């Protein structure tokens, strides 16, 4: 399978990429690791006329410690996040999940920014970043703006970036003394989650995220409220399906996914010490 023809530009700076996006609008697509976009293009589910390759912008590949948060460059590859000593020591949940995505080959190419901007509700990192209360930094023709993770995922494969904006950084709070759990149900190794759940418990509160339980990655307010009011893991997990609209497919019905969500949320909460 070979993608339909396109023009290809390998950019030398973020501004060059933004300029091309402004000029070409919806016809242009950014290419980071290509591990979501190229499969779609091979199946002709996406046919951009211009690919703007931001892969060479390695200045956006980093993990650094800032005062209030861990800063991760949008072009940091999953593998590099998973083995970064800084991620491992200050947000081990993020390192763990980045290290579970796909397989080593996928992790050597795929980037955190691509995972987020693709807007696939079955992706792992968006729900984790929601549960952690992360902030995303977008850059456009008029400079940078911050977007809360909770406002970023708009609908199925749609995110809050404008067509001429580039995601440049992910800011991840470092809750002190956090305990966490991450649970992902797959039938085959290497697959996306049929359902996934993440829980983070720290002195500053609780965050519970759900993977593949609706058109967007979700944060489960009902479970979080139950935990904060003193419920144990099993009690709080009973609320896990509340407000979810999972799709039904060959991997499971709506009722099955909602059942699995309750089970996985319970396990994640238990691991998080709830």
């Amino acid at each position: 399978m070979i993608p339909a023809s396109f023009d290809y530009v390998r950019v030398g700076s973020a501004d060059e990429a933004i300029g091309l996006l402004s000029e070409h609008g919806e016809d242009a697509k950014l290419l980071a690791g290509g591990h979501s976009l190229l499969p779609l293009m091979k199946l002709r589910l996406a046919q951009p006329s211009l690919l703007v390759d931001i892969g060479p912008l390695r200045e956006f590949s980093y993990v650094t410690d800032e005062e209030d948060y861990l800063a991760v460059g949008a072009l940091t590859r999953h593998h590099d996040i998973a083995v970064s000593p800084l991620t491992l020591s200050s947000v081990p949940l993020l390192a763990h999940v980045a290290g579970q995505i796909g397989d080593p080959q996928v992790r050597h190419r795929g980037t955190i920014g691509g995972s987020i901007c693709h807007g696939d509700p079955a992706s792992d990192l968006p729900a984790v970043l929601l549960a952690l209360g992360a902030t995303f930094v977008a850059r456009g023709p008029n400079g940078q703006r911050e977007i809360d993770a909770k406002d970023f995922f708009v609908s199925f494969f749609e995110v809050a970036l404008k067509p001429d904006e580039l995601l440049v950084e992910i800011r991840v709070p470092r809750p002190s003394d956090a305990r966490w759990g991450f649970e992902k149900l797959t039938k085959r190794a290497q697959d996306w989650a049929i359902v996934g759940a993440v829980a983070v418990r720290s002195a500053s509160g609780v965050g519970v995220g759900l993977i593949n339980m609706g058109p967007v990655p979700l944060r489960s307010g009902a479970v979080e409220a139950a935990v904060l009011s003193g419920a144990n893991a099993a009690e709080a997990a009973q609320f896990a399906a509340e407000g979810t609209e999972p799709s039904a497919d060959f991997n499971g019905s709506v009722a099955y996914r909602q059942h699995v969500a309750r089970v996985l949320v319970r396990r994640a909460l238990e691991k998080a010490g709830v």
Partner: protein
Amino acid sequence: MQIEITVNGTTESHDVEARTLLVYYLRDAVGLKGTNIGCDTTSCGACTVLLNGQSVKSCTVLAAQVAGDEVTTIEGMALEDGRMHPVQQAFQECHGLQCGYCTPGMVMAITSLLAENPEPTEEYIRLGLEGNLCRCTGYHNIVAAALAASGAPEMHQ
């Protein structure tokens, strides 16, 4: 477009379309047919090559994306004196292949895994090969080959 890639230490330069996938660049433009195409959907790992030393699935990388980079294919694995690479040698000794279709991708994936962790556990190898499918062997001898290769002196030079 003209795309220059260092393949197995030799600089290659070929005029290909922007949509050319790395695997076709290697097989058709360069003429190295050792890299196989299995699923063509990033699932089976048959097309695995090393990109700057790390395993990637060449059916899901554009040649244009890796212009200027270094790619190693199975043809580039043999040692300078002509002997097989320790991972290849271990596949032969452990009977790590039957039809051989998955083997080039397995050898490249394992080489990358061992570069990242020269003293692997069996679990590390099994998890690390989740992106490589084999229809024949049942994997046991592939895992055995990976573990045997990790002990080879050449791997620790």
